[in-house]
């Protein structure tokens, strides 16, 4: 049985007239078990492999290997299907044309699916909206499947009329989760990130075919470890309060502010997807009406809800004080994640400016990113930034854009921009 815990990190003391309350709420889960093995219903996995004509034979072979490795990770009894994606989505396995479009994993179906995958050859274009829509239809064909996950691999830019993909993303949002991977450098990070963000998954680049197998394996292993389906972050705020933002800030930055589903006038739910044994941090910022010195109030009640059960909660408080030694402190966790969120934004904006030919803005933004990465101890970001810019002074954030950049390094910096680091926590805090 999964167990959840919550911890709140904040400085609850506000100065006279202060209104904005910031808190980091850490939610931990242990004993999650295996996807589909709990009481909450079956799990379903769909592997989507790009089989467009742009897939070079070597890449295609690596994708086939990767898909087979992923099939090996799917736990017996789990519903699954494999889609070949090009101009249209084709159901590669199971080979059915009507009725239930997914089958349970066992020795036979695994073998059949692998054989089907081995027959993949690249031809045609890339219409990702059709891939997502077929995945949605397949999930819908098995009513017992309540935890739905897609592994999506693409190698190229979507070739559909503008808006078509967004409509498909909208249809899939809240229905299934998707981890997306791009292989090579001909795909658009921003485009694929739109899919993974909306579908509560990850995005990353697989720079070369050799890494395909390990990536697919890891994604599927992680997905199968998510024994708790569909958690929701439920936030109550007092009457008259305004939620400034709700963000997941660890392990990655994901803005959830606009994804609120009202529960009642004071309470709303934010999607968190499925949970494995893991810990996530959320940054909640609430604006409340200022109260008199000495008054205390609850600024937010942050709960995790699974099914209809509240499994854990943390209280975000506000206390007005005239003691400046209390009110001027910024909580370490809040400061750290504020920096990490800015870092993600600086990297993305810097790379967008660079792509748009605005080198001056790119230099300033990426310079700021270098400084923030150093300040917040994000070594991965620092390493990746140094492949794109020459750092003159990390503390000042003065950099020069490198003249020749490996496109894959730039894309890796982009996909990794939302990954955050944690800081050590004082156990007494």
């Amino acid at each position: 049985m999964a167990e959840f815990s919550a911890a709140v990190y904040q400085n609850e003391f506000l100065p006279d007239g202060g209104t904005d309350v910031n808190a980091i709420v850490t939610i931990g889960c242990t004993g999650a078990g295996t996807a589909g093995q709990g009481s909450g219903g079956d799990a379903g996995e769909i592997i989507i492999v790009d089989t467009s004509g742009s897939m070079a034979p070597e890449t295609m072979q690596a994708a086939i290997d990767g898909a087979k490795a992923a099939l090996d990770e799917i736990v017996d009894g789990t519903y699954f299907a494999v889609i070949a994606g090009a101009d249209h989505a084709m159901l590669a396995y199971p080979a059915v044309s009507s009725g239930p479009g997914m089958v349970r994993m066992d020795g036979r179906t695994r073998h059949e699916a692998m054989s089907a995958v081995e027959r993949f050859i690249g031809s045609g274009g890339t219409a990702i909206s059709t891939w997502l829509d077929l995945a949605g239809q397949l999930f819908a064909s098995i009513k017992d499947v309540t935890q739905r996950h897609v592994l999506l691999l693409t190698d190229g830019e979507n070739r559909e009329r503008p808006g078509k993909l967004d409509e498909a993303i909208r249809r899939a949002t809240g229905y299934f989760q998707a981890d997306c991977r791009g292989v090579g450098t001909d795909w658009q990070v921003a485009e694929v990130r739109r899919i993974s963000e909306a579908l509560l998954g990850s995005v990353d680049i697989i720079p070369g075919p050799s890494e395909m197998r390990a990536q697919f394996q890891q994604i599927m292993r992680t997905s199968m470890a998510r024994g708790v389906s569909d958690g929701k972050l439920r936030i109550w705020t007092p009457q008259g309060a305004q939620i400034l933002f709700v963000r997941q800030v660890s392990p990655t930055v994901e803005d959830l502010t606009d994804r609120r589903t009202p529960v009642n006038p004071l309470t709303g739910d934010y999607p968190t997807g499925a949970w494995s044994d893991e810990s996530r941090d959320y940054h909640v910022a609430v604006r409340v009406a200022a109260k008199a010195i000495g008054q205390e109030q609850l600024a937010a009640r942050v709960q995790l809800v699974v099914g209809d059960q509240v499994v854990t909660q943390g209280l975000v408080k506000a206390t007005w004080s005239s003691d400046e030694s209390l009110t001027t402190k910024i909580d370490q966790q809040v400061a750290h994640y504020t920096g990490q969120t800015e870092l993600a934004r600086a990297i993305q904006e810097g790379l967008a400016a660079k792509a748009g030919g605005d080198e001056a803005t790119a230099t300033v933004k990426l310079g700021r990113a270098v400084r923030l990465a150093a300040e917040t101890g994000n070594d991965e970001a620092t390493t990746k930034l140094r492949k794109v810019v020459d750092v003159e002074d990390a503390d000042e954030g003065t950099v020069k854009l490198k003249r020749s950049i490996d496109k894959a390094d730039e894309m890796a910096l982009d996909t990794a921009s939302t990954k955050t680091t944690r800081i050590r926590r004082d156990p007494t805090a």
Partner: protein
Amino acid sequence: MSTERVCPSCAAVVPDGVRFCESCGAPTGAPPTDPLPPTAPLDVTPMEDAPISAPTRRPADALPDPAEPAGRRPCAECGGEVGPDYYCTTCGTKAPSERDHFEETPASWVAGVCDRGIVHERNEDAMAVLAADRPGSRAVLLVLDGVSSSVDSDVASLAGAHAAREVLRRPLPAGMGTPESRDAAVARTFADATAAANAAIVATTDPDSPNPASATFVCAVVEGRQVHVANVGDSRAYWLPDDGGGVQLSVDDSLAPAQIAAGVPREQAESSHDAHAITKWLGRDSGDITPRVGRIEVTGPGWVLVCSDGLWNYASTPAELAVQVRAAATTEPLALASALVGFATASGGHDNITAAVARLAVPEADEGVQHHG
């Protein structure tokens, strides 16, 4: 201190008989620490079968406990429902726990308010108030001020107040041959009360605590025209007659009175930084716990006020307090106690604030002791 119980609100372990959780301040649901139910002593009085003399104290004279407050009050800010974690479910305002703010109104003429104030995080003041129904007959006003520097002063002070309340529940000794002998017997009863309070404070202190709980003690017992007071430390009792000329009935055990006695102006003595350094207190590390005792016979209408320094810091002299009493313009004791606490809060609320008052309207003949003859 036998079986272990846990707080229904936060699940912290609470010692037997403790009514408010040390950890979160929520009521524990324990019965009052009341070893003697008000009407029970009749059955156990050893004198009951004595053929010659009737018991000198009739158990019927034992004052009953004030009624428990009914349910949790709605949110003071918005009137919304207050949730089990003390936050208003509508506006989020933290409702004071019962320990942080409580009121007692044992009779129409007696009431008290005990409040956390603004600056302190806990309410370490404690109060216990008893009164007979008939105005001006008999009342007990007890205030203990827990010393902030110790860990569990809030629990200890309340336990002390309740223990002393049991000693003073029944009338003071009477029927002595001379006023002097009666005064001595009353002083002994007060000493019993402080001893009981002291024992309760020590009992609620962690034996290993390097910083044991301690508290001041002040008590006024109204018996008709007679107002008896006893104190240890610097919590105070006043008589504030309607026509002016109020007096402080207690004498602080602190450095300030010594300085005043030596000729330092009162204002200066009481505002010096060590004015609040008390020289006597209750608790494990106390020395002498014998209270100073005093008595006054009142002759006109007015108020008996018993309070902690959270109030008198803002109005030390009887004249200053009389200004606040007049400003409150009420003869309702709860309204006056609330107004005095409100005055201290508005003045800064730097300490916990307790004010217990008894309205003596038309002092009656000294009949409160007549039946002890």
